[in-house]
């Protein structure tokens, strides 16, 4: 009897939480497919929603999927019948596949304010943030980190690292491409050497970074901007990124509008908004990546103390699409020996 009362009360409480707010009549709605790290309370999503809604007099709705890759699979599953106006959060390395799906429309947005370290002239996809992969190290466990990828690969095997799996995570794929960019055809040999130093290879960044913070290894594959989180949010200098002489592989996250959008003008307005300071200023301290324009207020001071990659490394998206399978297979052979 008592349990049922509690149950009813709980149900009512929760259903109350579900009740939709009365929507203003005939208000326009923009639907954005993205991943949940973006829309979570810790991500930039909530602030961006508020700012855009104030500017457009419309409602911005997020559909939060489980990952950047999940966003693309969802869209491919839905095909032409998708409900998205804008898709935000595709990784550069899946851009070619996304383009081939034929679901995206040209954005027609002037991208002259872009301040990326590489040239950008794509008529379908617009970048909204970027970063560099890097090995983050624990200064209390490692006094002198390797200063190049070569030094890491050739370091004694008791230098331990934690990696992500390229079959299930974007940083993992990033390192695969990084090693390929530096070593070319000799990549398998480098991987065999890296494998001997690898404590574990995880499914995703979350597990890897968590294990690193637990002290399971002094080095982890992450981003050059990861230390900014510790410096800004935790006032902690302990975790730093190791700068590599060969350069750092880039990650660029992009957005695009769909062909099937029922309000292309609103979608375009969002893409334009995406390149303004109102959107971009949330990126450094909520997404922990670099904004794609020069912010009027500049970057947070902590960003001045991050590793500045002398040379950004990047394969064209088409080449990644064509060779990814072969390179993953090659990696698998090299590290499973």
């Amino acid at each position: 009897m008592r349990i049922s009362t509690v149950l009813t009360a709980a149900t009512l409480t929760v259903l109350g939480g579900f009740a939709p707010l009365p929507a203003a009549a005939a208000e326009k709605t923009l639907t954005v497919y993205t991943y949940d790290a973006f829309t979570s309370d810790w991500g930039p999503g909530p602030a961006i929603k508020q700012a855009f809604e104030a500017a457009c007099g419309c409602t911005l709705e997020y559909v939060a999927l489980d990952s950047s890759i999940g966003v693309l699979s969802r869209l491919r599953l839905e095909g032409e019948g998708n409900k998205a106006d804008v898709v935000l959060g595709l990784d550069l390395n899946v851009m070619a596949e996304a383009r081939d799906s034929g679901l995206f429309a040209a954005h027609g947005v002037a991208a002259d304010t872009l301040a990326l370290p590489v040239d950008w002239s794509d008529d379908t996809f617009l970048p909204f943030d970027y970063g560099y992969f890097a090995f983050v190290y624990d200064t209390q466990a490692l006094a002198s980190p390797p200063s190049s990828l070569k030094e890491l690969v050739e370091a004694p095997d008791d230098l331990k690292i934690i990696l992500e799996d390229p079959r299930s995570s974007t940083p993992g794929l990033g390192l695969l491409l990084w090693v390929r960019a530096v070593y070319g055809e000799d990549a398998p040999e480098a991987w065999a050497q890296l494998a001997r130093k690898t404590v574990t290879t995880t499914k995703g960044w979350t597990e890897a970074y968590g294990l690193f913070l637990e002290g399971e290894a002094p080095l982890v594959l992450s981003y050059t901007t990861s230390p900014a989180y510790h410096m800004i949010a935790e006032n902690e200098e302990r975790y730093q990124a190791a700068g590599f002489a060969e350069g750092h592989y880039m990650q660029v996250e992009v957005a695009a509008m769909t062909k099937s959008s029922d309000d292309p003008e609103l979608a375009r307005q969002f893409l334009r908004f995406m390149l303004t300071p109102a959107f971009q200023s949330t990126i450094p301290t909520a997404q922990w990546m670099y904004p794609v324009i020069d912010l009027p207020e500049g970057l947070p001071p902590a960003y001045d103390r991050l590793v500045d990659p002398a040379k950004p490394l990047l394969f064209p998206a088409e080449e990644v699409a064509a060779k990814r399978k072969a390179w993953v297979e090659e990696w698998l052979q090299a590290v499973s020996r």
Partner: protein
Amino acid sequence: MPWWLPAGIALALVTAVVGGALLALGLAAPGLALGDNLADAYLWRVVWFTVLQATLSTLISVTLAIPVARALARRRFPGRGLLLRLFALSLVIPTIVAIFGIVAVHGRTGWLNDGLALLGLDRLHYLYGLTGILIGHAFFNMPFVARILLQALEAVPPETWRVASQFGLKSRDLFRLIEWPALRTVLPGAAGLVFMLCFTSFAVVLTLGGGPKATTLEVAVYQALRFDFDLGRAVTLALVQLLLCGAIVLALLRLAVPSTTALTEGRFYERPDSGGRRGLAVDAAVIVFAVLLVVLPLVAVAVAGFNAQAPGVLARAALWRAVGQSLVIALSAGVLALALGAAILLTSRSLRHRLGRPGAAGRLELAASLILVVPPFVLATGLFVLLRQVADVFALGMPLVILVNALMALPFVVRFLGGPMMEEAQRHDRLCQSLGITGWQRLRLIEWPGLRRPVALALAVAATLSLGDLGVIALFGSQDFATLPLLLYQAMGGFRMGEAAVIAALLSLLCLVLFLVIEGGLGGLRRRTDG
């Protein structure tokens, strides 16, 4: 009611969900390319490793569970009841939480290594590799098997112990003549379930296995479905997993023997082997080992949760809304799983006792369990393809999560409730027939008093299992829907490990409380055996 109807309805639901999802996905694929996919050397390497690690993990879990169940059956000690409830917890906390609990204890800078360092010994790096996989899977599954075995041991009629003590049987003979036959009635089923869980393990195998050498079929499915968007390959791999696992578990079930519960007066007799110093020492060692294996990682999770960020995290309204939604999902899924499980068992009981077809009964129970080996990504994607043609998938979020969670919990309900329901039938079938008690009257008057505790246990397990599950919702994407595990992942994904630790501890505590409330409230506070 015809004997086949209850399971007919339940199985129709399971088949509709699993079959519908696979079929929808297969039809959506441009081509299955069955031959190409099956001729792949990589695939068979992965299959081999998957079978190997699942077999070893099952063997370890079951081998450890036997002495633990035995020690628990013949000892009463302070904290025994709590230990049993913590045992239920290890199965239900989210994988990622468990991994971090295990690393905090066994990792390179874990408690055990800190202990060695304090003693001036070298740190041991044993966790990552096959050892890690086995520790991880033993942590998840040993307690669950131990509970099922304990249930079987406690069902041995007290008269048996009296006769045994009159004959002056030694501990070894007791095991051979009394305990082993009792264990054999439930062991194959429990082992089959553990095998399926280990077979489909993904994050544990990859993370604690130390690298890509430790790849299960589930990783290949993930890769095919998510990175390569090769629906045909994903469906093929899922079918391989389903068939292979099904065949192995079916073979395992052939080892099962029907239970032979005799009539009992139901009075309590002391077991003849509870005295003796050597037995006591062995049992104490076994229980200490089980505590180290299972309880320490849970303690590590709790300790990590008591950090400076706890007050801030606990003050967030979003957290409590997620708690509310998680509880609604857990209770609804638990009740649904219980109903489905009871329906299947009603039919399998008829098959076993009234129609004399125990083999068919075993296969029926297996069929209900096979949903465990359908990769969640395949299930979710298939359901999405299936449902988006008929309904708004956003509106379906909540009911769908409840349905899928209930189906995932169904095998556990069948395991925990199966034994007791068969015993009830053996005890009371003739009496009920001769007195003409049927239907609701029989359920209320005859079955409920005997089944109350196992029903509560099954519901508690099913509900907590659903509480800790991330569910398929993350793949569907939806607004205003958050469960605790989802919040946990989001916090970790945003660097907020401290906050994630608080949520993990709260989630574990919630699982424990929910378990205690259901088991204590519904099962009755009269604890004959949980002391």
